[in-house]
């Protein structure tokens, strides 16, 4: 389904995803999460560093190729795709964009090689969409900074070596690169989750964690304005493609099942109401991919509207993923509710995408603001009846 691309890394990702990842996706979901050997393969094959600059050990692929790669991995295993979203997009691309030369040299090669796994530590027990209300704090002294507080819902937090942490002091938010080895950092894996069960979600605690001045990412007080917003832009790009990935995987599951299962003496794919679900899902997948290809091309062309279009795409494809996965469950019937079939997992994983990297409602606010200005045509008022 993925188009041929000139970059060999994408083809390699497609093969790896199909041959090795998809067969173990259910196991990753139920038994302990993305295994270390898979993480290392992602690094060794160049997937983790794919979109990061060549100068720092990355592959320097285009946004378009990175999107295709994300789709390939995400269609096979959403939990594994999370690693690309947080490690590569949210943290890696942000360091590449806003880090000092010293920070890039210090962290990016280690991230590309998989020596350091990074995660994005913004959400807290009482601060989700209202990110400015974070209570994790920093104090500054002659030697640097001291961080105290707790983060929650941190994907890959349980296995991460590097945390991009946001902390506040009297309303000023800083972004820090904190290593797990720092005294006072502890993590506790989260359980009882509906989805992302294999994505090593954790609560992360910082108790009097001392951070050197050179680990401040971005300028003082600009942690949210520039760092978090830049990171979330990259994160939304990744999640938009993750939506295509889940929707496509769900479509493949429903079609394959429909052509296998018989009811009323014939394959259920021959029943027109099943075909309606398949047709709608196909349109959804194709439109979601068109959206994502567009934002990728805009990013590659450095089009300044790429940020807003990415918000729109993320809003759309995360919903599409839910919708198509829901259709897959419907086509599979009782089997769609059973862990033995992938549709059940895809339905749960799809639901996450409408919550992370800005909820659907946060996206709606931004998209509505954009539309209220972009589509406002005062001259139309002349046609209004007096």
């Amino acid at each position, binding site marked *: 389904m993925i188009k041929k691309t000139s970059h060999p890394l994408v083809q390699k990702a497609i093969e790896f995803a199909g041959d090795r990842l998809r067969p173990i996706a259910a196991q990753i979901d139920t038994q302990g999460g993305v295994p270390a050997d898979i993480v290392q393969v992602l690094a060794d094959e160049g997937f983790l560093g794919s979109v990061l600059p060549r100068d720092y050990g990355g592959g320097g692929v285009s946004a378009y190729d990175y999107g295709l790669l994300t789709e390939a991995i995400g269609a096979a295993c959403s939990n594994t795709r999370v690693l690309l979203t947080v490690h590569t997009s949210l943290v890696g691309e942000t360091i590449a964009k806003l880090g000092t030369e010293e920070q890039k040299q210090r962290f990016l090669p280690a991230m590309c090689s998989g020596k350091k796994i990074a995660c994005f530590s913004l959400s807290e027990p009482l601060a989700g969409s209202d990110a400015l209300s974070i209570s994790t704090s920093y104090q500054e002294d002659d030697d640097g900074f001291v961080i105290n507080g707790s983060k929650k819902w941190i994907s890959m937090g349980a296995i991460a070596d590097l945390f991009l942490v946001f902390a506040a002091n009297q309303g000023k938010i800083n972004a820090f690169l904190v290593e797990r080895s720092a005294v006072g950092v502890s993590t506790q894996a989260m359980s009882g989750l509906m989805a992302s069960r294999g994505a090593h979600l954790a609560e992360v605690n910082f108790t009097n964690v001392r951070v050197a001045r050179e680990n401040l990412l971005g*300028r003082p007080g600009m942690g949210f304005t*520039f760092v978090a*917003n830049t990171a979330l832009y990259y994160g939304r790009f990744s999640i938009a493609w993750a939506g295509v990935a889940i929707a496509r995987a769900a479509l493949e599951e429903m079609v394959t099942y429909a052509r296998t299962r018989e009811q009323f003496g014939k394959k259920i794919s021959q029943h027109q109401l099943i075909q309606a679900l398949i047709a709608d899902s196909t349109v959804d997948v194709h439109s979601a991919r068109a959206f994502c290809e567009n934002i990728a091309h805009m990013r590659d062309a*450095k089009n300044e509207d790429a940020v807003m279009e990415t918000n729109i795409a993320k809003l759309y494809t995360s919903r599409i993923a839910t919708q198509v996965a829901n259709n897959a469950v419907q086509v599979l019937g009782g089997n769609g509710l059973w862990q033995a079939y992938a549709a059940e997992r895809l339905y749960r994983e799809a639901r996450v995408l409408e919550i992370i990297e800005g909820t659907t409602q946060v996206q709606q606010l931004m998209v509505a603001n954009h539309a209220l*200005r972009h589509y406002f045509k005062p001259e139309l008022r002349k046609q209004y009846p007096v």
Partner: protein
Amino acid sequence: MGHKKFDREALRQFIVKNMNVFDDEVVLLDDTNLFTSGFVNSIFAMRLLNYLETEYELEIPDEFISLTHFSSIYAMHELINNLQQVELT
């Protein structure tokens, strides 16, 4: 090859089309503070950063990425002028 001349009107149009205010007549002057006026919120700052870097084909160094340098059309004009001069020297 010379640097691209700063285009205040192009920047103004970019800001205006992304403003969060919906009054029909909004005046955006060169020295209007974009953030304290409420015309845009701070999230827009990273878009201004991308816009300037793309438009003027330069990388804004880390030490200049603070809200002050993006607070008005005038401030951004100053920023780009200064960076272009540094590149020339």
